[in-house]
């Protein structure tokens, strides 16, 4: 048996590794996606005052700190049994839309677009954001950076710190919005909407109109039948900040819909000895291995799963795009991994429209920023949709509000098993016995992984970017018989 090691996958937060085992014939026997890192936040949150956690857990991820800040802030509200006043709640959501906009823009242009706009088997040195800029023009490239910057600036305005936001306090937020600032955000939101429209048009013209790419999306080795998870409002519409978690099965039927407090009845995690990252699955179905299908407990929590799990979008233009996507696929749910990119752009439009709606809301400049806080109840759960999946924070405290236990299920963690399986399926579809494993093949294996926009892959969001790879082909004794490098 041959062993192919892809190490390091450097665009991970920390480090990642893919091991591909080939059988004696040269076909793919198995694939392991390993996360070799742990920091142990669940443990060292113990002993901290619960109101401090929203500023500690942002350090789980410097790319999506706002998600942890929001889930943590909501969990701390719950610990004290308080609901923020409407202004505070809306300010949080406004911040959160800017957070989604910055992340989704960066992911699409820096990570996804190179594979499609430049091409999946283009030269590696061109397959990055600079290659995209070369293809679409510097004007558009500059606009991409500018729109992401503006989204970052809105976050800094509302959240204090440009990266590790300090907005939340139990019962509300620390800072309000002035009328001048509101008008400024309204103008920016208008341009976000225009930019999201433009991006969807680009996706349409450069990707969907290209038969090769459309075929890759619809029929490539990138399809997995998984259950879909996502947060929905009272009308089962997509919501990033608040609501209930809904899971639809592989056929599109509701598997469950739970309130944040009940998450433990629905999600369970498995430990594998070869990775530091756990593998969540649907508890009521149970773990039946790395298998797809209706009987498997494996689900995904991605932009696509959010759209699958919901009945639509609350904003008009995003709703139209939602309908268009499902009409192209001929119904719901969609299991094409590459459609995650499309869903992400529909979410970009939704976040932009929602940003505009919130900036128009008269409550947003209100002065009531905090509800008064009494004694802690002692336990609280906060759930939001992170860009990369449903994010759950659960804290227990003593009578002084000091954390005694914490449990955290991070967005990307939901997708750990799904990513392993997507990589295996792509490798099996692309590596054929007797054929040379080319750089193009390596990249197309990576594309399976990239669609998830995994949170441990910070690079996904930024300039420039192809995933560096070393591929060692070893014989049974572990002797290196060939090395393929992508430079």
């Amino acid at each position, binding site marked *: 048996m041959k062993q192919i090691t892809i190490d390091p996958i450097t665009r991970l937060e920390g480090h990642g590794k893919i091991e591909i085992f080939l059988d004696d014939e040269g076909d793919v026997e198995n694939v392991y996606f390993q996360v070799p890192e742990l920091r142990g936040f669940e443990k060292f949150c113990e002993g901290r005052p619960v109101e401090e956690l929203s500023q500690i857990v942002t350090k789980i991820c410097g790319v999506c700190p706002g998600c942890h800040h929001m889930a943590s802030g909501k969990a701390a509200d719950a610990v004290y049994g308080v609901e923020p006043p409407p202004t505070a709640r809306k300010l949080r959501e406004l911040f959160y839309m800017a957070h989604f906009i910055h992340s989704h823009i960066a992911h699409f242009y820096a990570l996804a677009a190179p594979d499609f706009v430049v091409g999946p088997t283009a030269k590696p040195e061109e397959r990055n954001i600079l290659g995209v800029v070369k293809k679409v023009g510097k004007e558009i490239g500059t606009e991409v950076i500018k729109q992401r910057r503006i989204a970052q600036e809105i976050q800094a305005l509302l*959240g204090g710190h440009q990266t590790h936001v300090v907005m939340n306090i139990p019962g509300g937020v620390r800072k309000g919005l002035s009328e001048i600032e509101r008008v400024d955000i309204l103008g920016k939101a208008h341009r976000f909407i225009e930019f999201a429209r433009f991006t969807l048009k680009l996706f349409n013209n450069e990707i969907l109109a290209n038969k090769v790419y459309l075929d890759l999306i619809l029929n490539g080795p990138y399809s997995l039948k998984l259950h879909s998870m996502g947060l929905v409002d009272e009308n089962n519409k997509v919501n990033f900040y608040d609501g209930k978690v809904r899971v639809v099965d592989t056929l599109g039927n509701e598997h469950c819909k739970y309130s944040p407090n009940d998450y433990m009845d629905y999600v369970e995690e498995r430990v594998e000895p070869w990775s530091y990252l756990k593998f969540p699955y649907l508890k009521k179905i149970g773990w039946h291995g790395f298998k797809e299908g209706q009987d498997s407990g494996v689900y995904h929590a991605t932009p696509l799963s959010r759209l699958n799990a919901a009945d639509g979008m609350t904003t008009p233009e995003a709703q139209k795009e939602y309908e268009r996507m499902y009409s192209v696929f001929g119904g719901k749910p969609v299991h094409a991994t590459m459609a995650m990119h499309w869903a992400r752009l529909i979410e970009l439009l939704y976040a932009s429209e929602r940003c505009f709606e919130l900036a128009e809301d008269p409550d947003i400049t209100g002065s009531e920023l905090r509800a008064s806080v009494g004694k802690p109840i002692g336990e609280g759960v906060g759930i939001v949709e992170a860009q990369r999946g449903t994010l759950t924070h659960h804290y227990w405290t003593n009578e002084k509000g000091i954390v005694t236990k914490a449990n955290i299920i991070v967005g990307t963690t939901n997708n750990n098993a799904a990513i392993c399986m997507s990589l295996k399926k792509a490798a099996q579809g692309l590596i054929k016995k007797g054929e040379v494993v080319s750089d193009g093949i390596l990249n197309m294996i990576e594309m399976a992984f990239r669609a998830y926009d995994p949170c441990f892959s910070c690079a996904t969001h930024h300039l420039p970017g192809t995933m560096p790879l070393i591929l060692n082909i070893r014989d049974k004794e572990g002797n290196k018989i060939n090395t393929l490098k992508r430079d």
Partner: protein
Amino acid sequence: MEKKENGQKPKLKLAVYWGAACGGCCVSVLDVHESLFAVTEKADFVFWPIALDIKYNDIKAMPDGYIDVTLFNGAVRNSENEYMAKLLRDKTKILVAYGSCAHMGGIPGLANFFNKDEIFNRVYLTSETTFNPEQTMPQTEYEVTEGKLHIPVFFDDVKPLNHVVCVDYYLPGCPPKTERLVEVFMAIATGAQLPSKNSVIGARDKAQCDECDRKKTENKKINKILRPFEIVDDGETCFLEQGIICMGPATRSGCGNRCIKGNAPCRGCYGPPPDITDPGAKMMSALGTMIDSNDPIAIKEIVEDIADPAGTFYRFSLPGSILRRKIL
């Protein structure tokens, strides 16, 4: 830096690498936004996992001292972090501990209140959603049916970068403010005189309080310590004077008081001010001068109101402090 034949300075060779980090330090580099193109005119990134297609083997193949500047962010949490720190030390002329984690251990350093077994037990055994009847734990080497799989060794301690290699400069902050990075970059790129080795760069030589806009009273005394949610912050008065623990007196300035401008008290990510080695000790002495009592019992009562003093005073600095870790 060698000179090119035509007399032009060659471009700087920069590397950015992460140990146990969140990625926020890399984001701070990327937050130069539109100026990124100007930076790449003066410097080539020769290694930057977040962005570039350069691999460990390429680093190994470089001659010693090949890289002009490495910004190493993240703490040393496992064997891979340590290995890369040593490798990059050999290959780099100026090694910068970039950000709070590399500087003093940072937030991941709070894990030094515990040890490896406690962390593993919580994460892999007792967590409420974990179902692990066979008590499986991650193994550094594990044999699957198809072959062997490896993951790095998780250390008992989190270490700042200078516990494993010699560091030339420290650029603090969680993450460092992008403007400070640009100042340091320009200084290096233009060949300006750098401060003596082993010093902090990219920060100011004052304490946070010296740059804070909030109103302070001379010799203000406090008789009660409060939690941030227990007061209605007026947005103008010094947090300490309102009874809220703020690490301003024990923290170096340079961040632009960003958290304080967001109406949140400082938590010390820039590390201690010049001439102070231990931020916790400095904070305790600052509080000592503010407490409005000479009665040991009353003082004890006031001080006992501080929720999680160790985790607050050493929020970003436990591994690099005189305490280093909790004795277990």
